[in-house]
């Protein structure tokens, strides 16, 4: 790739980066402030009197491990479900031919444009009738497949040369083996990074879980966080920030662990 120096572009990027990062810095910094400091000097980046007290208070008030486990379990369930259904559906769309395929695909993609907010109520009724309130499964069930996932996997499958699939067909390999032995191994980086995105989205989900998870013991992190944000913007601001900070640890760990796959699957070239 041709690389040209461009200092004005460099500055633009740094500004965008700062805009994206500032709230995070601000959040972490306030989680180490006393309630008083946070109130008086909220925008101060380095705390005047750094303290761990918010974290210890939090540890006393809520069962942090349980919260993390609940969130993790639910997010894992959703992620696995979306990966499996997404891969199967994308594979079927890509490599099989049948009547009405185009129409089916058209409808599939249209569901991307139907907001989850809107289908939440019907879903709620189904879950409640199925007696799955207060369970991670109840949260996960209606999310086990979604069109976005199918689209992302379809896009990823564009990278597999069609001759590869044809070669396997001529060799008479059954479909499920092609998927298992050829498609999945080749798509591994894409699966990991798409999976990471699924996981994070589910990890952060708030509105839908509030409907299903009423019992405090089934709460996920975003629900617990909401408890610290009263309708008018936070009774105990540093405490909320401490919980927020805890909440981003797992996503960032996932990013760090899988960064190789994630960064590569974004742009195959040009950033080396």
């Amino acid at each position: 790739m041709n690389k040209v120096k461009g200092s004005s572009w460099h500055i633009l990027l740094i500004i965008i980066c700062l805009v994206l990062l500032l709230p995070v810095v601000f959040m972490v910094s306030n989680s180490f402030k006393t309630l008083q400091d946070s109130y008086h000097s909220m925008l101060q980046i380095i705390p005047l009197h750094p303290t761990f007290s918010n974290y210890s208070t939090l540890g006393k008030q809520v069962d942090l491990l349980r919260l993390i486990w609940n969130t993790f379990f639910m997010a894992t369930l959703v992620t696995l479900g979306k990966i499996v259904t997404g891969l199967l559906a994308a594979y079927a769309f890509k490599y099989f031919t049948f009547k009405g395929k185009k129409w089916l695909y058209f409808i599939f993609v249209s569901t991307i444009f139907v907001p989850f907010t809107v289908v939440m109520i019907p879903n709620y009724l189904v879950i409640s009738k199925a007696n799955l309130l207060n369970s991670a499964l109840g949260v996960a069930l209606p999310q086990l497949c979604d069109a976005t996932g199918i689209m992302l996997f379809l896009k990823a499958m564009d990278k597999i040369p069609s001759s590869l699939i044809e070669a396997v067909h001529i060799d008479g390999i059954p479909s499920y083996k092609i998927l298992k032995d050829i498609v999945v191994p080749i798509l591994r980086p894409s699966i990991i990074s798409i999976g990471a995105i699924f996981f994070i989205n589910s990890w952060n989900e708030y509105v839908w879980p509030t409907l299903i998870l009423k019992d405090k013991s089934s709460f996920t992190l975003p629900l617990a966080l909401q408890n610290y944000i009263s309708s008018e913007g936070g009774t105990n601001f540093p405490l909320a920030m401490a919980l927020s900070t805890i909440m981003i640890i797992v996503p960032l760990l996932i990013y760090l662990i899988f960064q190789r796959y994630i960064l590569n699957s974004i742009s195959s070239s040009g950033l080396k």
Partner: protein
Amino acid sequence: MSNEVALELKEVTKKYKKTNVISKMDLQIKNGEFLVLLGPSGCGKSTTLRMIAGLEKPSSGQILIDGQDAEKISSMERNLAMVFQDYALYPNMTVYQNLEYALKVHKVKKEERQQRLAKILETLNLTEYQDRLPGELSGGQKQRVALGRGMAKQSKIFLLDEPLSNIDVQLREKARDEIQTLHEENQQTIVYVTHDQLEAMALGDRIAIINDGKIQMIDTPDNIYNHPANLFVAQFVGTPQINILEVDVQTTQLVYAEYPVLTNSARLAKLSVPSGQLYLGIRPEHVVVKCKQESASELPAQVEAVIDYGRYQQLTLKLEEKQVLKAIITNNNFKIGDIVYASLAEDKILLFDHKGKNNLES
């Protein structure tokens, strides 16, 4: 008789969105034959191969494999192997695993697998690379692995889709020799697609020249070069291209401009073309270039370009009215701008009718 034919196409037509890519193609391939499908890009040669492989379905017509209607058997049961232009190696498997995979899925016993593959790896000089991934191989090595994967299946028919087009020119000659040796040893039926006429000439027992979805000619390399069925075949085979002149039929001779280029009246009589125009084809190596005019049939020309290819030289001669004539010579005494005289070897002249463009003597 019937079991001598390995593969047969009967009036096969393939349409995409109402345009015919292949029109009523008939083709018989004998057991053990090396048949090359040759043609320009988009002529339908790859589509033909893909239909034989079962990757595409004919819109109409029949494909018979070993006398059986191919439509009733799956790609696998056709008992054929295919090498793709991009090799289509499984990137997540080692060389050995690539060769082994289909056998493993079809439950060939481990011992037999090992024996078979050891021999193939040996033959193709791949033994030391057997644990590498395709990404770690050179183009030539990948091509050999693709060949090996096809061989491992021990199928009767071997389909090859431009297998040499992705490797370095310098290695192509060697790879081509290897394919030929393999064919001699295993005597499989081979259908080989290429757009490279030299490759086709070197490899094929017979060559089928395809254009616009139709077979233009199917014959041995020698006949295709020397007795092309029509103008397309004549122009497609041979570099530099055959020279084509428009000539007038006169009672006892053929005349280009005012020069009588063919005076063999017995030959002309056989043609039964009363009068009018013809296309005359003469290959560059049959154009003799002289410094002085020795007969009235020689065409005066000016040397426009001289290319020295080492083994031979190529002259571009300019006749009257922008007509260009190329000549291949082996001792170059000419310079750009020289006025020369070109004579066309009469017995090498090919004649094509002006309308249908078919060879008038074949």
